[in-house]
């Protein structure tokens, strides 16, 4: 469903430059469960950023990124926004919830009421919150939630638009082991229910090992199922 061909990414700071991704070829299929690990600074987040259309790769005639056989043009902002809205959900280590809004309001924020009517969106949100055990806290302010609870809210928010792929960048990085397991289970459950692919970038070896496709990123290159 998502295909990366000959993708490279170089970061320039002043007079120095660092090639973080070097000629990466990668594919994400429907219902995939992919875990990616690698040493710090190896480009995991960069790979995730490019795949989720938040970062643009180095310009190269050979390089291309496809969404359902549609070649992405990184210069067209509107196209990127549309692809993200209809295909991608994202979960990060820091939950990035808006502190001045309640749980329900945070979850409803990304919903376009032209596509999902408001009433249906609220019902869906409540359903998802029930699944993560936070229905009673739907009107709570974010600051009143624990780290795990906040991460669950951010997962629910990511799922509201029925994404085809869920990208998670160290979703359990700030959580304890027990909570991390809970979060992982939740992610797997949701991806199965929605028939969406799940891509997790992680430092945690246990989580990495749980992936159906395991990928290591090292020296800018991808090694799959080592």
């Amino acid at each position, binding site marked *: 469903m998502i295909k990366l061909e000959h993708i490279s990414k170089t970061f320039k700071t002043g007079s120095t430059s660092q090639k973080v991704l070097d000629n990466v070829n990668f594919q994400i299929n429907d219902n995939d469960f992919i875990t990616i690990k690698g040493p710090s600074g190896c480009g995991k*987040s960069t790979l995730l*950023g490019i795949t989720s259309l*938040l*970062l643009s790769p180095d310009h190269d005639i050979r390089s291309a990124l496809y969404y359902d056989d549609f070649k992405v043009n990184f210069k067209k*902002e*509107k196209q990127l*926004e549309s692809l*993200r*809205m209809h295909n*991608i959900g*994202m979960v*990060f*280590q*820091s*939950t*990035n*919830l*808006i*502190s*001045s*809004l309640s749980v329900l*309001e945070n979850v*409803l*924020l*990304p919903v*376009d*009421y*032209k596509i999902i009517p408001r009433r249906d969106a609220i019902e869906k949100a409540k359903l998802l919150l029930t699944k993560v055990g936070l229905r009673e806290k739907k009107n709570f302010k*974010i600051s009143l939630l624990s780290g795990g609870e*906040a991460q669950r809210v951010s997962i629910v*928010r*990511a799922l509201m*638009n029925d994404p085809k792929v869920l990208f998670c960048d160290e979703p359990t990085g*700030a959580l304890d082991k027990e909570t991390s397991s809970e979060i992982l289970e939740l992610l797997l459950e949701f991806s199965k229910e929605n028939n969406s692919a799940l891509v997790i970038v992680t430092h945690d070896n246990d989580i990495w090992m749980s992936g159906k496709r395991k990928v290591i990123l090292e020296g800018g290159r991808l090694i799959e199922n080592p």
Partner: protein
Amino acid sequence: MRTLNIFTSYNLKQFKSSKILYFFICISVTIATCMALSVPVIINTMTTASEKSQKRINGADIKIEMNYKSQNVCDKLDSLVDSGVIKNYTYKQAYNASIHHQKNDYYIDLVTEDNLADNEATVSSTTAEKLNLHLKDKISVLGENYTIKSIDDLNFGVSSQASQLGYVKLNSKNISIDTKPYAHLYLINAKSDSSSKIKSLKAQLKKDFKKDFNSNCLISSTEDVAKENAEKINSTVLIINMLNTIVFLFTLFAIISCLNMILSLRNKDIAAMKLSNIPSKNIKNAFLLEFFSTTTLGIILGAILSNKISFLMLKYNGITSKNTFSINSALTIFVGCILFEIIYILYGFTLAKKIKHLKPLAVIKGDEPATFKRRHGFSMILITIISMFVYSIYVGTITAFISSVIIFIVLLLLFVVSILLIYILSSIPLSWKCGNYTFKKIKSRKCSNALVVVSLVFMSSFILFGFRLPQGLTDSYSKGLNDTLPYNHIAFVSAKKDFNPIKKITYSKFDVNFDCTTIDPSNNSLVPVIFAKTSEENYGLKYKIKSGVNLFEGSGVLISDVFAKDHNLNLRDNLTISYNDISASFKIKGIYVSKNINPTIILSDNTSNVLTDAKESFSKEMYLMNCDSATITAEAKSLKGAMFLNISDLNDALLSLLDGYVKMLRLLSIICIIVAIIFGLNICQLFSIKDGKEYAIIRGLGLTKGFLTCSNALELIQIDFISSVLSIAFYYTVSTLLSTNLFKETFVFSVFDGFLIILLNTLIAFIIFSKRQIHIQKKSNDFTLLKDYD
């Protein structure tokens, strides 16, 4: 629709958390709009008022003002009436006099008005304003009491001097003043009202009276009055709009900095929304909706307040219409509101581009996005210049744009100089840790600090312009007079009356002939002069000699510097002075300094000649005295028909020229103070927000609150020092320019003014930075700020 959803779910809820910043934005918009919308209403009202009164201001279709009475002119005008060329004419006279009010005497011009009854008087609005006079009040002029029948809100049918210095009108029967009128007015009504016919009549009169007119004679028509009014309106617009521009620019800085801060504070929220796949366009539009709701409120409040401002400004310009509100003004204000909404829309759009360019991944990683790109700065400057130009079209005069550009350049210069001074002072190497840290911090935000300095400079300067400049100009002018004139009182007394100055004071006494004339060599026109002779024992106070010899050295006469310049006369030139059929020729042996007071006086010693020997021609005596007013005896003061002139009254009279402008400056300086304080507090608030994390880091490293307090104080002292120096320099420069151009005197800068500037700057800087100190005391150990995530 989606924008509205985001606005209602997110932006509406942010008002509370950003309430202080939005308060600053709203109040800044209110003040800017209020000032700006009052200008076109003022211009329209002044123009309408003057258009309706042009003929009344001139006194008639054509006004001739001469400094002597010409029989030829009277005869010619009579013949023009008889032949039907003109409908009629009125003859008036203008005198130098004084009005006694609340135990003091004030200089005024006295103009005859035969429509008034014996006990009635009309006063000019400037005189009424100055002496707090109202209808039916009693005033004392030349020892007689009169009731004020009317107050001329504009200067109607008077001499040019009277219109500048203020006047009282009395019936000519009441005037038995022991002095000659300084001006003779002929107010001529044409047969037809047509402007072309009046123009050709004026040309004809100029031609007919060519030999009678000297360089001091004036002829004006209603068209000339219209031009003069237009110039006056332009001067008023220039001043108001300069201050309007200052207010607009400072409020704009406040608005932009607040908006920038709001966006910075919401970087993470915006990143989160973008990561939640909400399109940038919707986020941006929701933010703009939030911003415009505040600016709209500010604009509406400003529109309501502008009526009050325009009322006050018009009052200071002598137009006391109770209500400036009309359909026209309502429409003008409505158009102005739309204009300002568009201007703020443009600024909002430019700033909101940050939302589009914000990289959400970088934000959540903790990279600080650029707060203000250079291209945004250029866009802002361009929008500002275009706004000023469009505003001048709205106001209806290019003067508005010119004055705005002048202020913009002055502000820019001050800004650049401030940055340079800040940079230089912050580059002083210090081994002291706190000082080193502070100077590096100041250098990194030199632009913001420079803006604070500029706002303080304008604030303190305008306080002084409004409340101290008139005194400063008076003192400078007085000093100039005291340094050059030997006297501070003049008295003109009838030769038959008994006046004995107090024995202990030094004085000069002259016998004076008011009815002499001479010929201007440059154009052969007749020039009236005052011939004054004295003896050596009566010449106690001596005039300062500019060139040549003193009165009792050599033979000849002394003329004034002004007279010499006006008629192109030099030392050793011959001057023929005539009285009736008598003429005598004199050599100019000296030129004395007159400071333009009675410059037509020709001084002679008692040397015998046909003129000095004609004793009956010397009907008056002139006394020059140097003493305080109390010393001149009550008896002397009550001498009816005598004219006493205190030279310092001239200061007041001359300063009344600036009266309207000074009052405007005072009102506008109050607004400038408010704007400067708001701007300063706003910058302080922004610093507090930005510095919060840095304070926590410093405290987390083990440094004390005392370190931060010391750093705060050092920054305050630097800003205070630079703003005080620049304020003094700016105030002195502008005051000197005014004093030199208006009164040809060097401005005397008083130590008190310098002290006041320093005090004002220190006070405001202290208020602004004490707020930061409170933040340091309460929040510098908030270590939750050190966490990277929520």
